[in-house]
């Protein structure tokens, strides 16, 4: 039994290079709920 299980999450450091295209939906009353 592993003591630590790490979920698959987006590499935010890498997204400095491959992010920022701006094609995602505007978020609003949040950012975390957006799909890239």
């Amino acid at each position: 039994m592993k003591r630590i299980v790490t979920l698959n999450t987006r590499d935010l450091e890498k997204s400095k290079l491959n992010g920022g295209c701006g094609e995602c939906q505007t978020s609003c009353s949040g950012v975390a709920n957006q799909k890239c």
Partner: protein
Amino acid sequence: MVHQFKFAGYNIVLDSISGSVHVVDDVAYDVISMFEKCDDSEIKRALLSRYELDERDIDECIEDVKALKAEGKLFKEDSFKPDESFFEKRRGVIKALCLHVAHTCNLNCEYCFAAQGKYHGERALMSFEVGKRALDFLVESSGSRRNLEVDFFGGEPLMNFDVVKKLVAYARSIEKDAGKRFRFILTTNGMLIDDDVIDFANREMDNVVLSLDGRREVHDRFRKTLGGVGSYDLVVPKFQRLVKARSACEGKTYYIRGTYTHKNTDFLEDIKQMLALGFDELSLEPVVCDPKSEYALTKEDLPILFEQYERLALLMKERREQGKPFTFYHYMIDLSHGPCIYKRVLGCGSGTEYLAVTPTGELYPCHQFVGNKDFVVGDIWQGVTNHELVSRFARCNVYSKPECENCWAKLYCAGGCAANAFNATGDINGVYEYGCELFKKRIECAIFLKVAETLESETK
């Protein structure tokens, strides 16, 4: 920066900066909590007194934590403070407009931030000519962006339905040549929904936002007609017809969007009522109003609200396991295909890539600033003319707020809502602390649901 919490049998560790999420046992949970404050021998001594383990077990666990740190998945240093290249990504590009097609309303909701739809001004409807120019302005200002968004908003936008239909037809006529794709959203109180509206909305609107507060007595407390009668029985059957017809339309979403106040801090009962009515895409938001109002949320309400959010998460998990899932928008977090770091730092884009247009063509940073003349940024004919104000919004981000520096949730909220911050503190770079508390609880619940879903699917 690491955030740890326990909920419903799960020990969850979130590395704020990398976004990594770990599910751990009690030993690893304790090792991680001590890791930055104690040396290895102190950790070992503490854990040997707590658990029946041999030293080798603890050594292995400490080594695992060190390996995750080396991989940048635990205790990652913050390297995301924005430089000029961050702002360059958005400079001068507008990709979304909120069209205020009607500054008037057929309801008289006491808690409405838009002052019964008129935004503290005169009753007004947007003409087709103003709307058409707004769409042209959006295309002209959108640079290389392909996906453009237009919200039909009010007031009550269906009080100007003919113009809405003409504007959609106009947008469809230009999108191919312009190399753009328009996504339309309609926010409505439901009073004017009929077969024509349902057919149109389910064909053209990518999303419809339907205002319903939950239980009849809760909804009717605030959402009254101009004659003072509750609107629940008038709108619920219309929403049900629209949603039933919409279920056959692929890729078309809706959500029931309610508001809760100090008067219904047991808001989970309102969620259950929405489910009982047959709705399964839900959103229920805390009222934001004058703190002196009798329905304003109070500090004493917070523990009750936290418990409601937790019980909501457990209900979602239970219904998912029963094959009767529903969505609650604040819990729809996407860990593997979620937003990039630019989005997480810069936030919603109000005042920069997202603007609101009034019926007379004035531009504001977002729908919540409309009516406050200090926030006019230009108009649809001359474009943005108040560059100083737009620059202030462009640089308003989670790193421009000292209060956010050590917050574990900062890359999930991007510093929060500028309008809420302004209303609470008088400064768009301020922080609406009450909203922060609720936001953090919602993120914990959202991550818990993702953890449970992931681990359950792996054991099947």
